[in-house]
């Protein structure tokens, strides 16, 4: 009896010790993998691709769901290249998803290629030594292939990634509603003009204009990218007159015109803006190319009108001063710790020069001048080409020559700004208080990070 009691006690104790020991043992492995790549985690195919008969295995991390293009891209590559097999891993492009990618790389897990969606995230990864300077390969002229828009993605004057996608931002328009109201599709317009459109287009109790929250704040970034986030003396420039104009225009649309939903309502109800637009309820939607993912999907979003496209309106009166968000995006980097950098580079070049064509179905057109744009466009429109206004679409996607910018602002500043303008749009503070608060907090941040 007594023996048995002892036995049970000891057994359970040993079990616990074992579990804990196992945990710390694993720790050593993890830390080895972190520092160098010579750890035991190396895959069997770690050697140079030519040296061994086994295929090289690459892992690519991106934020687009596999079924929206990436899987088709990878399958096509794998069929042609039995020696280099690529696996696509999806991470959700939010705080938790980016944290997952970052920890995976910091702990030396297999990440060979990864897609950055913002310049500030790319910069963090470059500073952590996780992205390879692609200039070292020397056989691909990024500026020449991708055009002048690529410059925005340089970090410390170097390309630590390849911007691959034309990322178009636009206002999608319900062409039928515009025609009925006798309004032309604008090719260049200001927020004041958009406000008039919204007023005329709002039917009954509905709204005339609605915004996806991702490009919501772009008008400010457009102004400040051009004129600087800081003034000459190094203090915050967030009280730029055009920032005030943006705040007041939108607020008037929410409060006076009631032509766009109040921000508070949009936030708490998590308003499905794509659906509001595609169902015909709201005739104008500020969004980006990913709208095509939904607008081509007639099963979930049945639609009986034609979609036309207008550039995002500008705050400044002078068209020459305007820069629009967009240009090119999906900045793909090669992990500096990857053991298969050469193979990853081969894949990346192929991807950029047209391999990515299936991504077009989700609204992502290749940026490289060597890619077959017609094929991509066909894949973009599928059998729904008739439901788009071709002319305005071509203008927004290809012909619009407005210079572009890539937002590169620290998340902290993006957040403090949105907290303050939310308070303004919700009526909790005046426009001047808002600007003052933004400037004060931005200055504090600038001091903090100096």
């Amino acid at each position, binding site marked *: *009896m*007594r023996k*048995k*009691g*002892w036995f*049970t*006690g000891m057994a*359970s104790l040993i079990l*616990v010790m074992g*579990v*804990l020991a196992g*945990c*710390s043992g*694993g*720790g050593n*492995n*993890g*830390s080895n993998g*972190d520092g160098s790549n010579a750890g035991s985690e190396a895959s069997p195919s770690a050697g140079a691709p030519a040296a061994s008969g086994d295929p090289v295995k690459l892992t690519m991390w991106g934020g687009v769901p596999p079924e929206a293009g990436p899987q088709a891209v990878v399958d096509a590559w794998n069929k042609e290249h039995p020696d280099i097999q690529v696996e696509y891993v999806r991470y959700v492009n939010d705080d*938790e*998803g980016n*944290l*997952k990618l970052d*920890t995976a790389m*910091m*702990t030396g897990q297999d990440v060979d290629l990864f897609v950055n969606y913002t310049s500030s995230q790319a910069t963090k990864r470059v500073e952590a030594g996780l992205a390879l300077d692609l200039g070292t390969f020397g056989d691909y002229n990024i500026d020449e292939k991708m055009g002048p828009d690529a410059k925005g993605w340089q970090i410390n004057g170097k390309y630590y990634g390849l911007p691959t996608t034309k990322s178009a931002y636009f206002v999608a328009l319900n062409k039928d509603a515009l025609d009925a109201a006798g309004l032309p599709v604008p090719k260049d317009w200001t927020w004041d003009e958009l406000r008039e459109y919204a007023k005329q287009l709002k039917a009954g109790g509905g709204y005339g204009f609605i915004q996806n929250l991702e490009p919501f704040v772009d008008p400010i970034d457009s102004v400040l990218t051009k004129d600087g986030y800081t003034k000459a003396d190094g203090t915050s420039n967030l009280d730029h007159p055009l920032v005030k104009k943006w705040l007041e225009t939108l607020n008037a649309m929410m409060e006076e015109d009631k032509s766009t939903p109040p921000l508070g309502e949009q936030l708490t109800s*998590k308003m*499905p803006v794509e*659906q509001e637009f595609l169902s015909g309820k709201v005739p104008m939607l500020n969004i980006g190319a990913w709208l095509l993912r939904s607008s081509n999907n007639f099963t979930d979003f049945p639609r009986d009108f034609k979609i036309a496209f207008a550039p995002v309106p500008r705050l400044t009166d002078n068209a020459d001063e305007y820069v629009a968000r967009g240009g090119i995006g999906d900045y793909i980097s090669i992990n500096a710790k990857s053991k298969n950098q050469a193979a990853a580079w081969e894949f990346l070049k192929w991807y950029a020069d047209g391999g990515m064509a299936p991504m077009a179905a989700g609204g992502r057109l290749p940026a490289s001048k060597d890619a077959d744009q017609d094929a991509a466009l066909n894949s973009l429109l599928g059998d729904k080409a008739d439901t788009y206004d071709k002319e305005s679409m071509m203008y927004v996607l290809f012909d619009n020559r407005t210079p572009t910018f890539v937002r590169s602002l620290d998340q902290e500043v993006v957040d403090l700004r949105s907290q303050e303008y939310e308070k303004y749009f919700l009526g909790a503070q005046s426009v001047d208080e808002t600007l003052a608060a933004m400037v004060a907090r931005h200055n504090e941040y600038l001091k903090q990070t100096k």
Partner: protein
Amino acid sequence: MELRKRLTSEAPKKLLVTLIMLLLAIVMIIPFLWMISTSLKTPAQVFEYPIRWIPANPTWEHHVKVWTGPKSFGTYYWNSLKIAVIGMAGATFLSAFAAYGFARIEFKGRNALFMLYLSMMMIPPQVLFVPKFLMFEWAGIYNTHLALILPGLFTIFGVFMLRQFFLSIPNEITESAFIDGAGHFRIFFRLILPLAKPALATLAIIDFSWQWNDYENALVFLIDEELYTVPLGLQNFILENTVDYNGMMAAASAGIMPMIAVFAIGQRYIIQGLTNSAVKG
């Protein structure tokens, strides 16, 4: 005679108070009723007012979607169950073990160690998030179930609660056994544990409900969708189906039902345990 008189004079008042309390109780559970009702409605019926509690044409399609869709709750359930059951079993046993040490054995430094335990209760989990994240990342168990299971094996509250219970067991019971030559292990397994069954059940149920409902640790330490527990899966479902209010409510029902079942079965233990630990603690 008097009894009958009392009954007749008190019954209406008793009934009235009952009715009022019942009405308020229904107000308390309205969110649950609304949740279930909405999960059986069509999208157009979600916000109809006045509320139709029993939907006109109840549909099960949202529940079917939650359980069979590409992101089935089956996986989340399995994950939650695994974590909660292992954690519960481990935490209950280890707490009992330690609580016995603190309650019934005198050794050097016992009180100081117990004070240390108690002081750990004051440390907010937020203090521990960052270092635990860095430690787990280093140890390679970040983003694995071990990151939840291992810390889940230890509950300071459990040690505290069971110690209180063990202290309340009269000394005579164990002393005679001790004099008969039984060691602590034997006393613990043969005498104390059987006596403590109700307290152990209470701790097990409470710990299970904590682990099942734990959202914050899962949020910090799990990333992969296949590893998600029910609260995370629920949040994920809601993020990806912002339009689908019916589906959201079907998912919320799925998340809540097991706890309601556990509560219905273990109500006695839960209430007793919470009361004891609070009043005597």
